[in-house]
């Protein structure tokens, strides 16, 4: 408590409030420790279930760290709700493996980035910071998965995606999938690393939009939604 007040006093700008939703007590504590150790972050609250997580959202946090596998449901649902209720909230998925499938699903639901569980505290805080500053962390596996998914979806619906990726975005994504870092990609394409990040953010946004329109498309196909003509 003293420390927090101390941080607050020493900090010119208010600290970002981080809500943590994680059912495993040790991992939850680890995340809390990472947040507390970062000077510009503070813990808004912790929850160990989807239900508690919803209550936590009411406190209007700046950042949501969320696990996908929760005892009473999938974190994906909460991500969707958080994105709908708080447009400005930064959502970061915490995952043991950072496996592309679940990360991409989270991004489609509206997540901004992901964090490996058990990561080095400095590294983890850095990842949170990047997201807070508007960055978009992306692993080669996730990039590769997004490419595959876009291709498959176009094939499946045989229609133009409502938000197709631009050629540049595809090129950037392809290089990211090969393992190149932002800086290297920037050099390869003769653009600034910021532009690469902008591309990735745009890709994330389109992924979410396409996911929503795909959901609508599938609902119409299934007869759940009817348009009155």
């Amino acid at each position, binding site marked *: 408590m003293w420390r927090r007040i101390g941080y607050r006093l020493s900090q010119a700008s208010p600290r970002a409030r981080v809500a943590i939703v994680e059912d495993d007590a040790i991992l939850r504590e680890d995340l809390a420790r990472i947040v507390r150790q970062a000077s510009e972050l503070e813990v808004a609250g912790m929850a160990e279930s989807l239900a508690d997580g919803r209550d936590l959202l009411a406190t209007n946090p700046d950042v949501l760290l969320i696990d996908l596998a929760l005892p009473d449901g999938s974190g994906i649902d909460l991500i969707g709700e958080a994105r709908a209720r708080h447009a400005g909230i930064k959502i970061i998925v915490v995952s043991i493996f950072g*496996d592309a499938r679940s990360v991409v699903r989270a991004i489609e639901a509206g997540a901004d980035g992901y964090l490996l569980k058990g990561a080095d505290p400095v590294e983890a805080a850095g990842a949170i910071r990047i997201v807070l500053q508007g960055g978009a962390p992306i692993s080669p596996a996730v990039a590769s998965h997004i490419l595959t998914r876009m291709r498959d979806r176009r094939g499946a619906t045989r229609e133009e995606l409502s938000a197709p990726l631009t050629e540049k975005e595809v090129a950037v994504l392809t290089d990211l999938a090969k393992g190149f870092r932002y800086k*290297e990609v920037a050099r390869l394409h003769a653009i600034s690393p910021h532009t690469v990040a902008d591309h990735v953010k745009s890709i994330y946004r389109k992924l979410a939009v396409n996911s929503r329109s795909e959901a609508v498309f599938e609902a119409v196909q299934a007869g759940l939604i009817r348009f009155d003509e």
Partner: protein
Amino acid sequence: MDGPADYQRSMTPPMPSQVRWPAAAAILMLLVVCWGGLLFVNALAENVSGRRVVEMLASDLPGDAFVARTLPHWHCCATTPMRFRTTLDVETANARDPAVLIVSAHDNARLFVDGELVAGDGPGAGDPTNWSRRPRLLHIPKPLARAGALIEIEVQRGVGFGHLRPIYFGEYDRLYPSYTALHFLRADLQAANGIIGAFVAAFCFAGASLLGARGLMYSLGGLAASWSLQVLGLAPSDPPWSGVVANGIYFTGYLGTNVLLIWFFVEWTSVFADKLSRPPRPLDLLLLPWPRQSRRRLAIVSVVVLAAGVAAIALMLRGDAAISSQDVDRVLGWLGLAAIAFCLVRVVAYYRRNGFRDLFEASAFLFVLIAAVADIVMVRFFFIYGVSLGAAVMFFPLALLLSLAARARGVFEAATATAEKLNLLVAAREREILDAMEELRRNERAAMLLEERGRIMRDMHDGIGGQLLGLLLQARSQKLSETALVSGLEQSLDDLRMVVDSLEQGEGSLTGALGAFRSRIEPRCEAADVELAWQIEDVGVTPNIGPDKTLQIYRILLEACTNALRHGRPRRIGVSLHRDAAGGVEIALTDDGAGFDLGAPLSGHGLANMQTRADRIGAFLRVTADANGTRVTLSLAA
């Protein structure tokens, strides 16, 4: 009588009853109305308002004295020509326009008053133009009409039922309606029937090959043609051929009618029936359906009899045409009765066997047969015109066509039903096949899952299992420092993550797989302050490199990377991927460290391990080391 019992019912489905009953009723009604109408006309014709002369003095010409004769008399026309004599009564003599109605059939009748020819032209005026059977209504010139005047009527009979009808005297206008009715029955109706018959015949002959039941169609067509031939022989009042030829035509038609009537009814009562289920007996020819072969023989016999009959008729007419005509007519009359009787028995047996399933057919057949009998009875025994056949002929073809249509429809419906059944069968088979395919796919998937599970277990055993076990044993023996524990656990987690990565990247993209690998080794390099030079070419799809090979490649590269970091103290580690000349891929990990002695025991284990993994996935591993550093190259088919 075991006919109905051992006979299989025809499979022809009946028409839908909602259509059948009203239609049949309508046809029957048409027949009855037509019959009634004709009977009314007949009554009109018979109800002559004039003096009916039945007793006459008659004489076969030429010359003999008149003898008293009662009209009608069935002998009267066996010889021909004849002259009848009577006297004019007072009433007729006083009439405004006295006339005589000669009922039966004599275009060639001549009227003499007091020996003077006043109307008609007969044999006395040369050959008669026609022997047809029209009634005559002749004026008696007023100046000659006196009571007691001698009236002589001379006729020459052609053919017919062999009788002379009564003769009527009276007012022309009052006799006229009867004359018109008679004319209608004997001439106009005949012509209409003849035309209908011609149409039916044309339809049958044209449609025989189309409709299939050729015997049936030919016999029916022949029957209709015969009917038309009869009319052609009788009806025209001034044909371009002689009376003898006209008789020949009529007799040919008559004979044809008799012969083809038998053929047609045998066909009709056989063709729609199934095969007899037991050996045939003689009585079967009368009662049961004839087999196809017998029917074919009957057709041949019919044609032969027809030809022989026509020859016989021609021969007979070459002699005394008039007398022979009467003989032929009589013979054919009796033959016709026999034929009708045979057909009646067959039809009754047919309906006893099959039930009245086709109402059109049943009503039409019974009506036409009964009408024929009725006509014969009326003409032969009551000396009035038979009108029943005339009525029957009007609508018999219609009923027949409807009946055929119903059968065709039945056949069509049966075919449709069969097609539907087939469709269902095909659908069921399709489902079965799909189920079987699904089952097969499930089994395949199960086998794949089993293989995959085995592989993952092997991987776990290889990597994380061994590592965790090592850590556990060291911890137990208290030999484990905290740093070693953390690094050991990190290594285990890394290995686990590599397993996950390999599974995710196992879709044939080595480029992506190496990309994932970078995120695993990058932190270590950063921690050791080593620059990672990443030179990955897009090698396209690599279908031969699945999750299994990917994981082994990860491990080899990780081992090489670990070796480099641990022993070489490099400033820079390079990872490259490119296609080689053979179309395979080459992955290389280079460092600019001190290199190491390949023979040294320290690194021996790591190298041997890498070699084993390379062998397992069929890859070629080359490790070169010198003062400038170490290079580990892995080549494999993509």
